[in-house]
């Protein structure tokens, strides 16, 4: 019987090194394996099922466990449990399942349990367009669970990024002891493209661990951020190590004990939010494309950013100076960068009715131009080009 403790560094044996032609879903699974994920609990749902299928094949090869749960509620709970026992754990889903996971995403935030949740977005609401593209869970990613919390969410735009950002998601989850989301979409999940996997370039981070050994009577503070400053990340004791910890979804004090009062709520929830928010400059990532001379800027993410990039090139061919800000983290949102661009004309194409556009507007403090589809097909470069020409 083996423990699924996260490996210290890169387990080179496990990494599928090389240059591949691979779907985004497969690349995501390979990223998880490379990052040291050894526990996957999930419930199949299109268009994320290929991640489950590949994990079912790959995990036992590297001594990990794939477990297919009875629903997404169970899947999310199971990965938090596995994380509390020291495993790097992941689940993948799509819109309807993501909704079912929300309550326990809140639990993972509250318990400060590192884990990764992948949402390969499809068209919604409800069952919507099971096999077709959507990007309409972006706000759910930020606000889907009840209560106040902070979240880290990536938006991969290629199979290569499905690999790279899944690795990064695990690193951020471990570093900040928090659930991290990979907000993929059907196009990026199902398309195949070149994916280069180089074990030498993979970095592995691990959650902070208590330094003091468990001793009779000695207590550590699993929610106390001791040693790392007020806004730091507290060390995480694992089940079975002898620390006799208590983890709860109730508002709790530094020991982890329930403490149901407004002072503890302010102190503890603010710390949990700030440990992410105060480090947003280290977390936030974006790509700038020909921004410098551009009075018109496309703000795009995920597969839509690729249509935007083509539209940008077509526009430049026609002499229109267009740039692009591509969000790599959707959350935390690169607000300061958008603030810098507030004097430009901003166009936000996305396969939803305008979700991230609201956040762009909040930071730019003005209305933006939108190009929207409600799902089912990607936005064509021509549609974005048309908007560019309207704005120019």
């Amino acid at each position, binding site marked *: 019987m083996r423990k699924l403790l996260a490996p210290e560094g890169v387990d080179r044996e496990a990494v599928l090194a090389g*240059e*591949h*032609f691979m779907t985004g879903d497969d690349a995501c699974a390979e990223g998880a394996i490379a990052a040291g994920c050894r526990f996957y609990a999930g419930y199949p749902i299109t268009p994320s099922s290929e991640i489950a299928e590949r994990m079912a094949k790959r995990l036992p090869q590297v001594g990990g466990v794939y477990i297919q749960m009875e629903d997404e509620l169970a899947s999310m709970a199971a990965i938090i449990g596995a994380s509390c026992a020291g495993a790097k754990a992941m689940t993948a889903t799509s819109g309807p399942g993501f909704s079912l996971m929300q309550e326990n995403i809140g639990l993972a935030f509250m318990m400060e349990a590192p884990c990764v949740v992948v949402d390969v977005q499809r068209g919604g609401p409800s069952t919507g367009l099971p*096999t077709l593209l959507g990007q309409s869970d972006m706000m759910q990613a930020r606000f889907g669970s009840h209560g106040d919390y902070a979240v880290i969410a990536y938006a991969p735009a290629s199979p290569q990024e499905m690999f790279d950002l899944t690795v990064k998601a695990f690193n951020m989850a471990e570093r900040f002891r928090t659930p991290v989301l990979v907000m993929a979409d059907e*196009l990026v999940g*199902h*398309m*195949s*493209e*070149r994916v280069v996997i180089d074990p030498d370039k993979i970095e592995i981070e691990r959650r902070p661990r208590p330094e003091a050994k468990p001793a009779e009577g000695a207590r550590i503070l699993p929610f106390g951020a001791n040693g790392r400053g007020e806004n730091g990340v507290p060390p995480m004791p694992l089940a079975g190590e002898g620390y006799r910890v208590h983890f709860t979804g109730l508002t709790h004090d530094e020991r982890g004990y329930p403490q149901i009062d407004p002072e503890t709520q302010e102190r503890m929830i603010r710390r949990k939010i700030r440990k992410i928010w105060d480090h947003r400059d280290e977390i936030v990532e974006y790509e700038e494309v020909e921004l410098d001379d551009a009075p018109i800027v496309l703000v795009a993410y995920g*597969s839509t950013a*690729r*249509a935007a*990039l*083509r539209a940008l*090139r077509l526009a430049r061919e026609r002499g229109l100076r267009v740039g692009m800000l591509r969000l790599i983290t959707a959350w935390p949102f690169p607000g300061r960068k958008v603030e810098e661009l507030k004097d430009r004309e901003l166009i936000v194409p996305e396969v939803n009715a305008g979700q991230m556009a609201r956040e762009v507007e909040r930071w730019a403090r003005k209305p933006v131009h939108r190009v929207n589809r409600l799902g089912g097909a*990607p936005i*064509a*470069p021509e549609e974005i080009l048309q908007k560019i020409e309207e704005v120019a």
Partner: protein
Amino acid sequence: MRQEIRLGGFGGQGIMLAGFILGRAAILAGKHATMTQSYGPEIRGARVAADVVLDDHPIDYPKVIRPDIAVMLFQEAYDYYCRDVARVLVYDEDLVRLDKKHLEQEGLQIYPIRAHRIAEELGKRVVTNIVSLGALAVLTNVLPVEAIEEAVLRSVPPKALELNREAFQRGLEHGRTLVEARVA
């Protein structure tokens, strides 16, 4: 240069695998490629299309916008996915009847192939896709023949290696015959 290829057929014909092989061949040849797919409402037995984009540079938009090259192995897929093709139309003449508009389209190179029939001669209809790839390799020069062959051999299970090698070779010969006929 960006080149867009659309492969159309029915589910189970190996269309997706053919698209995947082309993409993989591009990677082997040092080029960039994307492959995306379209299904009909049903997953099996209905029309499917594999869309492959090839380029020497990283590809921005991964979907096919207007195919330069179309390979059509099923009437319904042809009707649905092949309304507009720019440069080359390869179709299985036993399975697809061409639209007048394509026959009249100026500059469109049209190649009727017999991939399905050759596959049947080989005793396995499932290699229709590989025969078509052989023909396509000769008819279009989209990618080096060796890269496609290598990608075929890497993408099929070991026990089916010889069959697929032979299917690819038959496709190449078939393609050469068509080119010669055209030149003559």
